[in-house]
């Protein structure tokens, strides 16, 4: 798609790990997708996609705003910006019953405090449920998203604290104990198909569904990825380098973030 010379030029471009993750996530979606969008990096990624290669993408926030086209990124999933730019706004029960549970949403993005080798997620507690050392926000829309969106992309920074051998709490089922567990539970959707971190991209193995490293970000080594992971990692037979962000992607993302920061900092005039 890009010439070799152009790749060398991009290597000189400075970008943050967060920007690389956001761009990699944005590239997962197309104009044909109907996306369940969460706040934070997923919202930035989906709107970056909308402003670059996927102008006709449908973005749905769980506040019931369908087809939102926010000019700045919302701080919450219910900012007025989402409602005033949406094609329609439905009630929250309608959103979860008619639109999510029916299987009409093609893509969802998730993250979490902990993930295991089968892409199950914990967003509930660190420690035990009854006496947690850290009480996290909880499941929100995630458990049913993972069950009912056609595909799930997980985006989160990689560290031993987050990529753990065993979750403290299973909030959101990815591939469960692996293999065909999803099918056996009656789930007809794909579940997590990609995990994008600040070091690499992983995809579930075709048979075991265990996460396998399928690309390394520029200048990241296998040892670095392994030492940021709490289990013994598998690598695909061929592990290419993740394509870095293009100048255009970075410019659009930075402009979006700048406008967002200005909008949330100041109280806007009437």
């Amino acid at each position, binding site marked *: 798609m890009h010439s070799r010379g152009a790749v060398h030029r991009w290597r000189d471009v400075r970008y943050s790990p967060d920007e690389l993750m956001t761009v990699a996530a944005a590239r997962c979606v197309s104009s044909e997708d109907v996306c369940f969008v969460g706040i934070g990096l997923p919202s930035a990624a989906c709107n970056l996609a909308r402003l670059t290669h996927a102008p006709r993408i449908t973005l749905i926030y769980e506040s019931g705003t369908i087809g939102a086209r926010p000019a700045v990124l919302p701080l919450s999933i219910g900012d007025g910006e989402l409602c005033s730019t949406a094609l329609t706004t439905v009630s929250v*029960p309608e959103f979860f019953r008619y639109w999510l549970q029916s299987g009409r949403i093609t893509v969802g993005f998730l993250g979490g405090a902990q993930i295991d080798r089968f892409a199950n997620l914990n967003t509930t507690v660190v420690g035990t449920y009854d006496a947690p050392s850290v009480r996290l926000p909880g499941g929100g829309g995630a458990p049913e998203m993972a069950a009912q969106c056609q595909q799930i992309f997980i985006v989160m920074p990689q560290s031993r604290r987050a990529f753990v051998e065993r979750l403290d709490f299973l909030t959101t089922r990815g591939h469960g104990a692996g293999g065909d567990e999803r099918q056996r539970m009656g789930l007809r959707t794909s579940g997590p198909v990609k995990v994008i971190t600040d070091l690499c991209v992983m995809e579930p193995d075709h048979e075991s569904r265990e996460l396998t490293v399928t690309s390394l970000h520029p200048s990241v080594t296998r040892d670095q990825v392994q030492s940021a992971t709490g289990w013994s990692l598998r690598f695909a037979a061929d592990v290419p380098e993740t394509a870095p962000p293009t100048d255009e992607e970075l410019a659009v993302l930075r402009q979006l973030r700048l406008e967002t920061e200005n909008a949330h900092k100041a109280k806007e005039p009437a």
Partner: protein
Amino acid sequence: MSVFRSLQDAIADAVHDGNIVAMEGFTHLIPFAAAHEVIRQGRRDLTLVRMTPDLIYDQLIGAGCAAKLVFSWGGNPGVGSLHRLRDAVEHGWPRPLALEEYSHAALATAYDAGAARLPFAAFRGSPGDLARVNPNYRSVVCPFTGQVLTAIPAMRADVAVVHAQRADRDGNVLIEGIVGVQKEVVLGATRSIVTVEEVVDSFEGGSPNACVIPHWAVGAIVVVPGGAFPSYAYGYYQRDNAFYLAWDAISRDRDSFRAWIDEHVMRAGPDAFARRGTQVA
């Protein structure tokens, strides 16, 4: 049959110690002014129900009003933790807080069943460890297809509290924008309080599909301009995102939280919201 009341009287009559109280509004139209009146009146042992506890329940929990929280996502949206909620769960301050936890799809569906006065809600779910810690997660077999579905009890509160844009002179209620579970929580509850931005002669000229709750399905109506601040009222004022960011520091520390409650709740009244609302309009 709806009756126009003062905020003080409406809360005193409807919200009693030990009640199940659901103050809803999905990011939008969060009834902060009513919650502050509950804090001022010193209600105790409440079971607070809300999909997203948000700052409103962080304040009620930190002020010691709650014995139990029923919820599905307990963070400060886009910012981080609810520190008063965490302090109650992690350290029992100012008192221990029991949790009854769901996912959004579960609780939204439970409100829907409550409005329909059905005994339970069924949905296709995959509750994970939530089913282990919340015994209300059960299953039910579809009598027609044999499919196994997740079942949870309908959610019906003793008191529903919501904020809306307008009431007309007859006490009908108009809600526009992100409607959340406003209608469901009011229709499912035994008693209800609706705070509104203003009273108008009629709703003529608006969309025939705007969410109207008829006066005969509403309890008390209270006019509180700005009553959803620092959340927002679509068409009136915007969400004060800067305050949601500032709450992180205010609420992180017990003393600064208490000082904030003292100044902005205990030594203030509902009319303070009118000024706050117009600041961001």
